[in-house]
């Protein structure tokens, strides 16, 4: 068994890395689909006014 003083000296590296992975993956999905949607809208209508969110997602996403 581990006692509390041992726990105080440890860092939750594994838990934090997995937590961060989930966060990054979630953000990636949102950016990818937002950028895809924005690209579709622009292709359909050249005069389409993109919002800051759509513009930002297209800027960040390397695939759109």
């Amino acid at each position: 068994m581990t006692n509390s003083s041992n726990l105080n000296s440890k860092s939750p590296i594994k838990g934090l890395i997995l937590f961060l992975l989930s966060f990054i993956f979630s953000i990636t999905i949102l950016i990818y689909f937002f950028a895809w949607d924005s690209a579709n809208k622009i292709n359909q209508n050249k005069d389409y006014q993109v919002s800051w969110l759509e513009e930002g997602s297209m800027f960040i996403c390397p695939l759109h």
Partner: protein
Amino acid sequence: MSSSLSRIRNSISDIDFRHYGWIIVAVGAIAQMIGSAIRMAFGIIIDPLVEEFSWDPKSIGIAYAIMSIVTAFSSPIAGYASTIIGARKTMYIGLLLFLIGMIWTALASSIIEFYISYGIIFGFAQSMFLVPVIPAVAVWFKTRLGLATGLIIGMWSLGPALVIQIMGIALDAVGWQTTFIASGIIGTLIMIIALQFFRNTPSDINLLPYGAEEVNQTNDSKNSKSNTFSINLQNVIYKTNAFWSLMNIHFLGCVGHAVILIGLVPLMTSKGISYTDSVFCLTLIMIVSMTTRFITPILGDGINPKIIMFLAFLGQGLLVIPWAFTDSKWMFYLVGILWSIPYGGEGTLFPIMNRKYYGFFPMDTTYGWQILAASLGMALGGFIPGLVFDVTGGYELAIWISAFFSCFGAVVILTLDTTKEVLSPSFDNLQ
């Protein structure tokens, strides 16, 4: 495992239902019923609001999103408040906000007012009302925590189903505004009466937690009462992998099933199945999952919660995949029934896991953080089907995303420490 099952079977006859802890369970179940109805009542007021104010459904939907986000971010605050001032006072604050929210929502005349009353006030009310319940019950049960939480978590399904039916009938009879005001007043009165019987800890009425022995009395009451102890313990918990992984797992699992709960009916209708038949599939899922919500904490408490949780996540992830390929209504129903078994069990084991890892401790703040992660997962999962449909014209890709999130949750569960050992068995130096 068979010996564990027989142990559970044999011990059921030994339960002492005269212990005051079961009164706390009953109060917690009523609180869950009323609190979860806040969220579910939203669906029935959309049409009346469109009719009366000509607001578009998308703008009305923003209120729901605001409520979800406010609930998510106020959950750790609710948990902390429960640690410091006690679950009872925190629930009274939630009750006051619930009453204000119900009356203000009924009287709202502008969309901004609606965002404040339903989005912000209800958002806070929901977290103040729901977060303290499970940790409060946990303090009352040294053993049988699985049964106690199973009874309360079962109300997540049954409560809204009953309350929504009653509110739906009242709405037709007296209109949505009178229904909201009446529900607010009646719900508040019921909770005021119920909270008269609520006690934060067994030591408040000179009792021991269920299953505790006399020899532990001093230590138990000390653990329950000392705020310094709770805060110091929480600081130790933040430094464990289990804390971050359990938050992560709750988030991933909620994304996984929120995609399905929001996207299943549109997916079925897009494949030519009638709206009524599609809604029936969702109803089937709710009914079957109610049983596993109740049973899973009991199994997890008696066997090994890590294994049960892993199987639930894996099942939730893999069993959605047939929906991506089928067009048959009966196949949707069959998979729905099978999927609801792991889905019902997926989110119910967190109090048990907290107990296994950190022992008999006030889990309010820890649980609050887990609810934050779960609420964010529900928000993201609810958003994905619409986004996927906008770009692909279908929902199949959303099914694969749901499967991925749930299966990744199962992988994270495998990285958890064993639940056979308490991570921090001795906190005496934290006093």
